[in-house]
């Protein structure tokens, strides 16, 4: 089955033979759908990896002898691809990046994708959630999926691709469609959430495409998924800090001995920047003050600690007020928007 799915379609683009989604990503899409007042749609992001090639077969005439180097290279190029959905962008208003005929509105799609914070190259497809409706793609969903697939350089923004993900990414086109539906019983006691993944396959003549239902693997924490987690490399905004217990000058001297003077100046600048970043995180509680907590200077221990907690609490409080104020403002704005919308739609 996997070997059959690895055969490229009419356009020469390989199909995903396996689609998986991380548990939190699926949960957050369902949560977003469940908490929205109506139907939603949005974009799916993630990465593509190559699965190990299927076992070569002796009668594989199409690729030549599997023993020759050309044959094995072809086999590697045709080995099945696996797509992993890791994030989504739920769009604020429904049907914002396509029209009634399922044609894409490129500028709004580009805006939406660039605001998502995901690299453009990681667009895997899109999703649609509509309540109490059959779990089959509608005519427009089919057309949108095809348009998304047909527009390869749609998301070519000027921003350079994220280097940390580049190595993982293989060239692909967005061809995944995730359909969600939900319903509740009359007394709200039972909520049912359903989803189904589809992959677009172009028809033989190159006219139109078919959305084929696919199984969706959910990646969760547990022994069965250990391999997935060990291949994960975390990306953090926190700077890399060498251990600097001996003090700046000493380390600097050592480095100056090893390398040229110009380079040490650069290094000094870099270190100063990193130190600054670290200082801003510690909130004025430097290594010098920390030193006073140990050894003979520990008499001031209690007051120092109280000072530290006091500062932290102040920070938290100001954050909480900020969040509260902005939430109130968002709520106010939302009320105004829905009022305006219902006036425009002629409901009032």
């Amino acid at each position, binding site marked *: 089955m996997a070997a059959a799915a690895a055969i490229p379609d009419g356009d020469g683009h390989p199909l995903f033979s396996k689609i998986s989604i991380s548990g939190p990503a699926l949960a957050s899409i369902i949560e977003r759908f469940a908490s929205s*007042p*109506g*139907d939603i749609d949005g974009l799916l992001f993630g990465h593509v990896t190559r699965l190990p090639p299927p076992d070569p077969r002796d009668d594989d005439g199409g690729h030549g002898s599997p023993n020759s180097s050309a044959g094995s290279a072809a086999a590697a190029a045709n080995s099945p691809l696996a797509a992993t959905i890791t994030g989504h962008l739920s769009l604020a*208003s*429904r*049907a914002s990046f396509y029209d*009634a*005929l*399922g*044609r894409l509105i490129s500028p709004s799609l580009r805006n939406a994708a660039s605001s998502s914070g995901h690299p453009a190259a990681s667009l895997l497809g899109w999703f649609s959630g*509509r*309540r*109490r*409706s*059959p779990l*089959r*793609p*509608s*005519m*427009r*969903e*089919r*057309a949108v999926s*095809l348009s998304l697939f047909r527009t390869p350089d749609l998301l070519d923004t000027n921003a350079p691709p994220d280097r940390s993900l580049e190595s993982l990414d293989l060239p692909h086109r967005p061809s995944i469609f995730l359909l969600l539906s939900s319903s*509740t019983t*009359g007394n709200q006691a039972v909520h049912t959430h359903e989803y189904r993944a589809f992959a677009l396959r172009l028809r033989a003549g190159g*006219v*139109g*495409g*078919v959305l084929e239902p696919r199984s969706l693997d959910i990646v969760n924490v547990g022994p069965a998924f250990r391999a997935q987690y060990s291949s994960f490399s975390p990306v953090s905004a926190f700077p890399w800090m060498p251990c600097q217990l001996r003090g700046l000058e000493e380390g600097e001297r050592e480095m100056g001995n090893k390398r040229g003077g110009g380079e040490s100046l650069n290094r000094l600048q870099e270190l100063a920047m990193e130190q600054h970043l670290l200082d801003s995180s510690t909130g004025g509680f430097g290594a010098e003050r920390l030193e006073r907590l140990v050894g003979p200077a520990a008499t001031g221990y209690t007051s120092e600690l109280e000072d530290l907690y006091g500062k932290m609490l102040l920070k938290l409080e100001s954050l909480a007020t900020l969040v509260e104020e902005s939430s109130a403002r968002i709520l106010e704005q939302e009320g105004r928007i829905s009022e305006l*919308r219902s006036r*425009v*739609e*002629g*409901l009032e």
Partner: protein
Amino acid sequence: MSMEPPLSPLIAAQLNHLLAYSPLSVKVEQIWAGSRNARFSDRFTLSIPFCLDYVKCDVIYDALHPSVAPDVVFSSEYDDFDPLGDIASEGEARVSKSSLCDWNSKDPSRLMALVHELRDLYMHYQRRRVGELDDARIKFEMNTMLPREGIEVCLVSLPDRLEEVKFAVPLLDMDLNKLVPACTWRHQQKIYLQIIFPVSRRNSSAPAAPRVKLVSTSEVKTLFSVEDVKLPPWLDGMCLAEYLPAIEDNLKLQVVEAIASIGARRRFIEALSPLFGRPLEADPVLCRRATVLCASGAFTFLVHFSIPTQFPKQQPTLVMQSSQHFNSQGTPISSPLINDYPWSPRWDTPQMAERIFEFLVDECLNFKKFCIEAIPQ
């Protein structure tokens, strides 16, 4: 299941326009709301007539954004039907003519235009599917029959990977609605011939004969019973173009006769009044039923006449209903159907009424006895 809220006003206007003005008899199966705690419903299932059957689809609006064009989900049997793909493949000129282009939710005729457009695309889709079959006989029938106006064709999949092709051929180029005086039918009525060809499998011997049947709406059946028409046999090696003329000539005569029968029935109902008094109720268009009030001494009762389409060849069926005797449920007691009284189609109309009157004078005494016995003590 809780009660569904009413349709959003803009959507309701479009649906009502479709149901009132479409020449097709589209049916709404179900209306429901998509969003939670919604004020308005925004989705419904339509059954659209096609090829003597119905195509079901769910029309999905969004009550929160009623100005957005609806989306349509077709039932799973037609999962390779791709209407928007078909529109797009015909080029920009076709796309700009689509009813979905520049959707205006305030125009109540938009949904009707969309349904008609989709039905049209579906018709072409089915023709394409049938055209792709590898069956010489069906290819031939398609080529000869498709120029005929109003013909519809579809491919029916059966279990066991068998397939059939169904043709729906409208017969007779006469307007039944105009032929019936003072007709009240809303939709244009037609009599169709349904022919189902089994798709021959490769390497199979001679193709099997098709199944042929006349089909009409229930409205036409009140005028003329298509089931009673005897169809000529399908001979080996025959084709539709040969078969149709014979059937049409035969059918035309019978339809003319059925329409003449309306006049005969009308005269019969008119002939009842000198003897029975003015009918209490009568069907004024097709004259299929009439009810008169009779009295025999103090016993008063109704007589319901139901007059067959083949009148006067077949006699009317009578039912007597007492106005004075009721059963334990409180409904009036009725006699069984009476259609074995003396009758001849060669009598003139006043004589028919007279003979029935004479028959009832005797029969009502039996009915009175029947009623008294039937009354619960």
